[in-house]
């Protein structure tokens, strides 16, 4: 890595390579967490769950961030005809993020926390993330000559970058006593920021996948079409106002519930659009399915459909009362971050890393096996979480509750299936990314 970040060789590809390492590392921590679910007390002294969970979640969140930054910088360069404002700023962004994730992982290993869920590290470690992101924004804006007549993916990237910065800063408002001196107030703002933050990285990822689709189909018209912009604005509207569905059961002003409930239901339009365009999608899928990157885009389409149905149901407060606080929420969180975000980003990784000095052809079988293994095991993984969630929900609603620990024991079959399918999911993803990695490193060293 030291060589690839030197002046002559730096390309945004290094973001993607580091992202893939983080994905694999994050999944290993996930499997450890799964084992801790099925073997109570497993590694309790060395690496108990309060360390494993953030190690897992931060690694996979940084997989998403690194891969998104790599995708945006690479595609922006392609879009502008190789005119990235500053390669040095990209390098600085990369270095800041590497410092950031390494120090975060070290903090977790040594039991140093102090933040809140998903960003559990001591708040000071958020500084390189904030500085890096501002650099990303500057580099992005200055790389564009103008915002005139730009395709929708440029709008999506710019929106994603701005809103990630805003929501990340907002998630640190708790450092001020005004927001931090009452748990309900604190959690309201916390989940307001988190809800929109997810929307912001979705903007980066969906924008990248739309660019990729344009490239594969060799048809730029969709990215400029009214329909693409209407869907983009629908996404932005949801990013801004639907976050309240995370906190229906938290004491808050009633209008937060009403606004988020109504806004979340606009997702039905997106669902309707998917169903309406199903046939066209299928025809396109058959045409391009042989392409490695495209396969992952198709998989993401299927996962969007499944997760959207689940998400819309969970956004109805009357249903949310049953699903909230159960593993159905985990199914939603991992279903979307793996099924949608990871599949789309893997498509992008394939596209960006495919051209090396060695052909990927000899690995075709292996990569297809990886693809199918990853997706089928993800389906089992997802169903196991929903199953555990349904039983927990029944327990939560039961007037005659057994002890929490007994209830968890009753769920252990689901957790066993979940962990085994997690191992297979890791195997599938490793098979899919191994050739990319191997070829890249081999070429890198042979060039040397």
């Amino acid at each position: 890595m030291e060589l690839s970040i030197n002046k002559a060789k730096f390309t945004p590809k290094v973001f993607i390579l580091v992202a893939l390492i983080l994905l694999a590392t994050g999944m290993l921590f996930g499997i450890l967490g799964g084992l801790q679910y099925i073997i109570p007390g497993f590694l309790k002294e060395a690496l108990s769950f309060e360390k494993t969970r953030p190690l897992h979640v931060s690694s996979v969140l940084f997989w998403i961030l690194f891969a998104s930054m790599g995708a945006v910088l690479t595609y922006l360069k392609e879009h502008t005809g190789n005119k990235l404002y500053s390669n040095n700023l990209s390098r600085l962004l990369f270095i800041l993020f590497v410092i950031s994730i390494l120090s975060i992982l070290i903090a977790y290993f040594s039991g140093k926390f102090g933040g809140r869920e998903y960003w559990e590290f001591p708040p000071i470690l958020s500084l390189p993330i904030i500085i890096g992101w501002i650099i990303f924004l500057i580099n992005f804006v200055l790389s564009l000559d103008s915002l005139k007549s730009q395709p929708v993916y440029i709008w999506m990237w710019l929106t994603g970058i701005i809103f990630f910065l805003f929501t990340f800063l907002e998630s640190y408002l708790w450092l001020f006593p005004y927001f931090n001196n009452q748990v309900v107030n604190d959690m309201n703002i916390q989940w307001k920021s988190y809800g929109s933050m997810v929307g912001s990285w979705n903007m980066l990822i969906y924008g990248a996948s739309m660019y990729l689709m344009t490239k594969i189909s060799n048809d730029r018209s969709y990215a400029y079409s009214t329909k693409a912009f209407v869907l983009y604005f629908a996404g932005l509207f949801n990013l801004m106002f639907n976050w309240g569905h995370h906190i229906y059961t938290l004491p808050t002003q009633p209008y937060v519930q009403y606004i988020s409930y109504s806004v979340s239901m606009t997702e039905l339009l997106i669902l309707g659009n998917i169903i309406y365009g199903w046939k066209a999608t299928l025809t396109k899928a058959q045409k391009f399915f042989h392409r490695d990157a495209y396969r992952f885009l198709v998989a993401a389409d299927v996962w969007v459909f499944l997760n959207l149905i689940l998400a819309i149901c969970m956004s109805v407060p009357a249903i949310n009362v049953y699903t909230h606080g159960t593993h159905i929420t985990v199914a939603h969180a991992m279903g979307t971050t793996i099924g949608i975000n990871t599949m789309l980003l893997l498509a992008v990784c394939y596209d960006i890393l495919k051209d090396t000095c060695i052909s990927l052809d000899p690995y075709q079988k292996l990569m297809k096996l990886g693809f199918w293994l990853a997706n089928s095991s993800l389906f089992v993984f997802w169903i196991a979480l929903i199953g555990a969630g349904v039983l927990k929900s029944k327990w939560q609603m039961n007037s005659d509750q057994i002890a929490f620990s007994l209830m968890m024991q009753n769920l252990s079959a689901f957790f066993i299936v979940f962990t085994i399918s997690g191992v297979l999911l890791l195997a599938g993803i490793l098979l899919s990314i191994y050739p990319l990695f191997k070829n890249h490193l081999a070429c890198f060293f042979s060039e040397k």
Partner: protein
Amino acid sequence: MLPDKQKIIVFIVLCIGFLSYSGFLYSHLPVSNPNFSITEAKGKTLWQEHNCTACHQIYGLGGYLGPDLTNEYSLKGPDYIHIFLQTGNNTMPNYHLSESEIQDLIAYLKSVDRSGKSDPRKFSINTNGTINQ
């Protein structure tokens, strides 16, 4: 194709809506007179420093390995919580907390308990799909 002008107008209108809603929420937090004592505040810091949220939920938000603790104080009482904090259990680590740290954490959980009820059985469901606490 939408003209750039229209796109910019929609974008600006949405941003103004978002910023106004955010500003309104910041200035109208749900609890207007918070009375967090020093011990409770210390308890919250300890809660974050030990990452209790990795396993426990407050209002159903957090990790899922342990139980929701929103109303643990009124359901189980301070002595019960004290024992867990002092010794841990099969899954929960013993953090070797000092007595004053244990008291701070109990005070924090007491303040969480005071803030509302998280039990989903306590909600009433309306025919339009909304809920009331």
